[in-house]
């Protein structure tokens, strides 16, 4: 139990630093801006109590906000996806595949399950984040394009990370 706890804290710190020091400096015509740090929320174990899910996501968001001078922006988006995460999981689960102490993963749940799960959460997060950031409707389609392109890039990173962390044993 303690190992899972420490593992998640380590992942928290690593993802924040990775986001701040590397991903935030990527420049691609102002449209692609991956937010890979929410991988932390995707990977929290299944039996995490909902209150812990919400509070840790809030802390994750506010930590990133401190580094980008956008107080509350990432926190709002993270709390929202932490809130809908249990509903997403129950809506797509078949009820048998979860084991205690396990996190959602490509290997255990299969590509279809994991793709559905991560696409919904990433899209909701990016949608909230970009529209809260701009907070006006005059640039609606431009922002939509940014949401879609950035989500695509974030998902790409999520899948690469999944394949890297579970090498096939043979």
């Amino acid at each position: 139990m303690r190992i899972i706890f420490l593992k998640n804290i380590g992942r928290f710190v690593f993802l924040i630093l990775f986001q701040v020091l590397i991903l935030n400096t990527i420049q691609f015509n102002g449209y692609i801006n991956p937010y890979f740090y929410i991988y932390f929320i995707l990977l929290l174990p299944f039996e995490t109590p909902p209150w812990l899910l919400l509070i840790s996501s809030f802390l994750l968001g506010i930590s990133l906000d401190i580094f980008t001078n956008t107080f509350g922006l990432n926190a709002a988006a993270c709390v929202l996806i932490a809130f809908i995460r249990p509903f997403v999981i129950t809506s797509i689960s078949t009820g048998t595949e979860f084991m205690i102490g396990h996190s959602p993963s490509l290997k255990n749940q299969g590509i279809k399950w994991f793709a559905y799960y991560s696409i919904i959460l990433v899209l909701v997060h990016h949608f909230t984040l970009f529209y809260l950031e701009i907070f006006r409707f005059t640039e609606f389609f431009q922002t939509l394009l940014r949401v879609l392109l950035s989500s695509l890039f974030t998902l790409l990173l999520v899948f690469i990370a999944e394949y890297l962390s579970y090498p096939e044993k043979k």
Partner: protein
Amino acid sequence: MRYLLFFLRKQYIYFLFLALEGLSLLILFNNNDYQNSALAYISNGVAGSVLNLSSNVSDYFSLLRVNRILAEDNARLHSNRSEAFYKADTESFYHNDTLYKLEYRYISAKVINNSTNKRNNFIMLNKGHHQGIVNHMGVIMGDRIVGQVVSVSEHFCWVMSLLNKDSRISGKFKKNNQLVNIEWEGGNYLLGEVKEIPKHVLIQKGDTIITSGNSDIFPEGLLIGTIDHYTIAQEENFNYATIRFATDFNSLSFVEVLIDMMRKEKENLQNSFKSREQ
């Protein structure tokens, strides 16, 4: 009462969600006027020290370019040194000149965090209260504008760059002093929008836009950019143009913060004027 508690316990997760989400949105929208909140003060210090560390490493990769820029700056300063001496040198002694009074002082600062890929971009500098920086000071690089200070802590400050939806610069055409507003609408960080150019002004590709000096933030005559292309609107009363920024925001490394020595006087005048109007 008991029912209420029971209800709260059963549904606590919804309340927790609403509380956290509400808190986030509250901070987000309350922070928009960029007051020097205690929150910003503490967090700037924390973020500053981490970002400073990373910038210490990444600085080595841009040394060559920085050296070139500094050398160019030096050459430029040397070439008009005598002029600069009479106008501005009161750093080391009090220069009681009745013709020239020092209006702006420059503090050199290093960029330790910068972005150009977001809709609202901010730049962090390694100078703060300790060096005399307060909110709403202008930030420039050489004779080009960069942005304005929006949040200060003991040793660091955040600068809202031109690449921000809340940034609005008052500029003018260098050739005929026609006033215009310059904004950035996202996307490409090299190009901005010039709003509301009066119909009678003849626009040409390559026209230079400089600061007007109408705002309290920048003095007159700093370079903003040049006209890249323009559209003549048929139905409206104004034409629109796209401006190519003189500043390359993606390669900022050293900038200068403008300290307005006559800021108090200007503010006092404005306040007294306002109180008279009421």
